């Protein structure tokens, strides 16, 4: 019955094939091979369409907006890239500064979260203790709250830490020391309006994610290894440092890179907190170039910027593809 109905329906006919991909024997009939090739090629075109569009635009020297559809570069001009590298925004901030701000935030937050998270993940994975369930839920709660949800209180919290120069030359370090007479003084530093402050705020969501991702992985490391070490006389600290930690290194790397990819495009907190151009990141600049106030920016320059922002993440993802997918589906989701 099923074969009879499937032979009439072209979609089911295409599907009517061996899905194991391994069974040897009869080869694919030519007509089906061509049909499937056509389908694959069509999917390939849809996948490549936006990528070719943006690449072609970025290699164009035309500053006007595209008047016709070009999916293949007619010229390879690096003018747009050069302009972006020379003067990425209207503000006095160099490309190197933008790049280093992005890297500082992504790497800094990633490393701090990782180091703090790994011991917590170990405790959740290996020990049975009274408050375990409660504490695990406590770690999970922030994950339910999107970054935007925690932005208000973090903004208010970090905004309280300021350093100002009072009129009498003394320094006021809020909230510990205020200027005499209640005057505000000249603001030198506001933790909220600094990369450090944004980094702290980003850690609030990065840390719980790292704990959960690592915990899922540590659960899969066989306990026998630690038991064997215990028989040989190692205490819990030694097993952690000498056995579990070395085994967890691949997943530490994966957790770091998943975090990095997320932090690289962090926009909410940076855009909310930072106001000085010297602190801007690449993601913020891309928004500046494409937002509603940016009609004057040539599309080729915007395209070049988009390619530049995507580049580090793309390279990392391709290099670590298998591990990242495994880490995402195996670690964090199953929890």
């Amino acid at each position, binding site marked *: 019955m*099923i*074969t009879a109905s499937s032979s009439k329906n072209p979609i089911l006919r295409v*599907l*009517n094939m*061996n*899905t*194991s*991909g391994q*069974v*040897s024997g009869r*080869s*694919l009939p030519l007509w089906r*091979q061509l049909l*499937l*090739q056509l389908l694959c090629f069509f999917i*390939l075109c849809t*996948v490549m*369409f936006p990528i070719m*569009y943006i690449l072609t635009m970025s290699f164009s020297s035309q500053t006007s907006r*595209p*008047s016709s*559809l070009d999916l293949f570069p007619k010229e390879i001009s690096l003018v747009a890239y050069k302009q972006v590298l020379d003067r990425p925004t209207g503000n006095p901030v160099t490309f190197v500064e933008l790049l280093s701000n992005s890297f500082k935030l992504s790497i800094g937050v990633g490393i701090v979260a990782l180091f*703090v998270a790994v*011991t*917590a993940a170990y*405790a*959740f994975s290996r020990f049975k203790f009274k408050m375990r369930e409660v*504490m695990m839920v*406590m*770690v999970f709660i*922030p994950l339910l*709250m*999107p970054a*935007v*949800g*925690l*932005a*208000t*209180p973090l*903004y*208010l919290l970090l*905004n*309280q830490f300021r350093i100002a120069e009072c009129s009498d030359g003394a320094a006021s370090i809020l909230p510990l020391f205020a200027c005499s007479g209640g005057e505000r003084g000249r603001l030198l530093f506001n933790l909220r309006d600094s990369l450090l402050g944004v980094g702290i*705020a980003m850690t*609030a969501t990065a840390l*719980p994610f790292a*704990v959960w991702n690592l915990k899922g992985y540590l659960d899969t490391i066989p306990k026998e290894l630690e038991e064997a070490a215990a028989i040989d006389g190692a205490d*819990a600290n030694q097993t*952690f440092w000498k056995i579990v930690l070395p085994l967890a290194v691949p997943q530490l790397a994966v957790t770091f890179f998943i975090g990095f990819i997320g932090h690289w495009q962090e*926009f*909410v907190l940076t855009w909310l907190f930072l106001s000085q151009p010297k602190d801007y990141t690449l*993601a913020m600049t*891309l*928004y500046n170039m494409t937002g509603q106030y940016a009609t004057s920016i040539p599309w080729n320059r915007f395209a070049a910027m988009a390619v530049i922002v*995507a580049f580090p*993440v*793309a390279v990392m*993802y391709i290099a670590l593809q298998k591990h990242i*997918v495994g880490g995402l*589906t195996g670690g964090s989701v199953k929890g």
Partner: protein
Amino acid sequence: MATAKPETRRRSGNQRALLPYLYLLPAFLIMGVITFYPLIYQFIISFTNFDTTHLLLGLKSPELRFIGFKNYVDILTGALPVENFNFFRVLLFNFWWAISNVVLHVPTGVLIAVLLNTEGLWMKRIYRAIYILPIVVPPLVVATIWRNIFDEQYGAMNQFLALVAGFFTQTDAVVNIRWLNEYKPPIPGFLPGAELTLAYYAMMIANFWLGWPFMSLVATGALQSIPRDLYEAAAIDGATGNQQFWNITVPLLRPAMIPAAVYGFTLTFNLFNFVFFMTGGGPARSTEILVTFAYNLVRNLRWYGVAAAFAVIIFIVALIVFLITNRITRATKTYQEA
């Protein structure tokens, strides 16, 4: 000697009982300051009229007043003085957005994975390598690219449609579809309570491009772990390729695809970067999701009290979603055991 032994054992026992807390200490110290304290603070100010005038002094501010549940009531009844805001419309749209995406991505991802797993297919490796590309581009960049593709005057989509139309009519057709700005829904009454504007369809196209390759990647991994003897045995018993697909491939993919679908759902539900960069919630808030509106409250309106109340509501919604999805993933576990 006999007395010293239990002594040391007890001491090491105590140490062992304390050890997990010692390992948890750094994480909880940091989270105490930057997570739990802000959460509680958030909860408190959600009952106040906190705005920019209270920024410096915080809760010590003399004019700060407790106004009870007013912020919550204002949000839920739509009494906020914000244009085109209706909480339940945003909520409905948010759920529809996440569900409709996952419903499209998962089957497409599986089908394409199966397609690429066909025995004897030429250039498999090349296709696999290229199909992965959408995943490696950050959603923020994907959204900015597609925003420009859907530009009504210069965008690639309208130019492409004009090219196709010109091919059929032999004229220089001009297509000016206002993808991101047209407010009138193309299919009236599609989602009663939250009409879907063209911008929604544009977002669906872009996120479809972004989303199915990940599902395909997961499905490919799962497909390759299905033992081939199952297919051989089925083939000997006379099962057609179709029967093999529905009775072997689909059930054995389920344990891998359900967690992936749940992950996709939660990710899409809060896909701030994508929605914000693509439409900014427009036109007229028709594509606003909860997180983009929360961002609006803080960034543009600076009503910190209202924003805090909104965040608490988001938290409750997220908690409900979590409880439901957690049930679903647990369901797969019992499935595997059965």
